[in-house]
């Protein structure tokens, strides 16, 4: 079959819109909201909605930048550790080096980019597997954060102007929500409306094919990983501003929450298929579930444990459900291009 580039809308053209993963996920989110609004205590208040958003921004940001990486068939396990390292270095620059918060912030994003560039160097230049590289830097960056602070030093007493980023409201939304909106819109356009995004899918389907087709595979990968590092730096700022303290354990385990959001959002873990809005819905589904459970009186005391379990169940169900549409599409008497549809949804290495 011809290379490369199955456009997203073509990939699933055989799947009716109401059977698409993202649609089903949106329905799930809707059902969650309806259930918790009727059973939960003060679930539907504006305050609580703001809470959900506030607490999800960092994971949302990490999940957003994780999506292009997974689209290429890669993964970045180090984003949570980059967040931690950036948080303590931000604290260090502000408190010990005397930088004003905005300058320390800019430098922090730069540091995040450097961390991403280090990953990118090993992955794109030396062609090492992303899983192994970022598993290593996952420990490396967290270890650096702990070394910088000796594990005990914590940065606090940040000025109000900086804390506004984590606790304030801007035009009706929590301040940091605007960062998420900008990142989401920017990435959506990049991934779904530009050739750049299409090239990522192609790399995910077949890196060798993409190379033959003349795509600058290495450059694309570098962009993805550096972007992930930079955005992890941004997340470090919102995290520190929300919490008021920067410590070496900031963002511990966030990489897995982010990956959960991405995969739940319908991105194929081996690459090639996935959407930005799916990721947003995936993150929202998990965040609303976790928050909603703490609001149902009979479940309040086991909400933490239960939300972990239910997230797992939803994830498995969602992945199983993801197979249904393609099965149905496969049975349907073919419209125009049933063969290519079937091949590209089930065996995307076409």
């Amino acid at each position, binding site marked *: 079959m011809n290379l490369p580039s199955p456009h997203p*809308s073509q990939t699933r053209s055989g799947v009716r*819109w109401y059977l698409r993963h*993202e*649609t089903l996920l*949106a329905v799930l*989110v*809707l059902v969650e*909201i*309806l259930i918790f*609004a009727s059973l939960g*205590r*003060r*679930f*539907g*208040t*504006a*305050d*609580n*909605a703001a*809470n*959900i958003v*506030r*607490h999800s921004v960092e994971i949302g940001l990490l999940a957003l930048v994780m999506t292009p990486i997974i689209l290429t068939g890669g993964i970045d396990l180090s984003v949570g550790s980059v967040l931690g390292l950036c948080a303590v270095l931000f604290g260090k620059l502000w408190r010990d080096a005397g930088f004003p918060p905005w300058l320390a912030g800019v430098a922090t994003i730069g540091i995040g980019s450097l961390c991403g560039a280090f990953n990118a160097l090993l992955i794109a230049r030396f062609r090492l597997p992303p899983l192994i590289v970022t598993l290593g830097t996952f420990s490396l960056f967290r270890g650096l954060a702990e070394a910088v602070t000796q594990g005990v030093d*914590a940065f*606090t*007493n940040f000025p109000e102007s900086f*804390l506004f980023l984590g*606790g304030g409201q801007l035009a009706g939304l929590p301040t940091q929500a605007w960062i998420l909106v900008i990142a989401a819109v920017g990435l959506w356009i990049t991934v779904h409306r530009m050739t750049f995004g299409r090239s990522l899918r192609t790399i995910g389907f077949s890196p060798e094919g993409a190379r033959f087709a003349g795509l600058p595979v290495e450059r694309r990968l570098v962009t993805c990983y550096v972007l992930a590092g930079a955005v992890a730096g941004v997340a470090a700022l919102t*995290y520190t501003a*929300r*919490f*008021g*303290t920067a*410590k070496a*354990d*900031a963002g*511990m385990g966030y990489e897995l929450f982010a990956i959960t959001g991405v995969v739940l959002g319908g991105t194929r873990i081996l690459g090639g298929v996935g959407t930005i*809005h799916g990721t*947003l*819905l995936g993150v*929202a589904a998990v965040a*609303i579930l976790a*928050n909603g459970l*703490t*609001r149902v009186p009979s479940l*309040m*005391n086991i*909400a*933490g*444990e239960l939300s972990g379990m239910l997230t797992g169940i939803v994830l498995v169900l969602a992945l199983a459900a993801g197979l249904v549409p393609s099965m149905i599409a496969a049975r349907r008497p073919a419209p125009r291009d049933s063969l290519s549809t079937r091949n590209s949804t089930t065996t995307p290495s076409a």
Partner: protein
Amino acid sequence: MKRTLPLLFLVCLGLITGCSKSDSSSSSPAAGEAITVALMPKSKGNAYFVSCREGSEAAAKDLGVELIFDGPTTPDPARQNEIIENWITLGVNVIAVACENRDGISTALRKARQKGIRVVTYDSDAAPDAREFFVNQATPEGIGYGLMDEAARLMGGEGEFAIITASLTAANMNEWQKHIEARRASKHPGLKMVALRPCDDLKDKAQAEATTLMSAHPNLKLIMAICSPAVPGAAEAVKQAGKAGKVQVIGLGLPSENKGYVKEGITQSVILWKTTDLGYLTVEAAVAVARSQLRPGATSFSSRRVGEVQVQGDQILLGKPFVFNKDNIEGFNF
């Protein structure tokens, strides 16, 4: 179709934000009105806090209030903040929290107070302006006196003893040690402290230190371990040296970690507070604060279970520490 997805998402967002009227006013209830107490441990699985929870549930039942018990699964200060922020919008009446990170959580607690939620702390305190009362399980004085008196009782009022501490610079340890020394000088002058050794909060190091102490001071009658890993560490050293009974071990630690040694007769006593009582008293105090029955300036507070307890400034004192020994340690699981 592609356009409908973002639309759907927006609808969802709209639903969250708009689907019910904002009724987030939470004023302090009058006596008799239903009260919701939200209690947070440093971490949920920790046996220490599990037993606090038992006490707090008993108190909630006795007082007829609703209790929410939630916290991070591991000691995670950021997660503690998120849960507090959740409780604020949930509209609980009073929050009681054992703080993992003093500065980090104080911001969230101040926010709760601004919204009219009453705040107390227990076990480990927040910044004083972030809460109304701190339920203090043990004062340095209570710990120091308790340890010294127990040592004097076991030693019969005379002889040599040594102390194993976490580090020579730890502020709380030094504070305790100051009170131990003060009590020795005033009440038990027959006792002599021959050494003070740090173990870096490590069981192995405590064991090594205890071994050295026993050979350096052949007349040593008792080792007092004032950080929790040092109690089993010292006991193991005594056991291996075959000096059980000859060199006694006491210390500040968890009953569960020392049960074996206590039953074998190597460790004589473990000193700590009753954590179930701490949980009980915390809920009682929280409810009393929410009903405005406990106000600043109070000097005592009467608890159904613990009895009359002292209030010093903004601290509610649980009272004297409890001595766990061979006779009673079996019943405690934390």
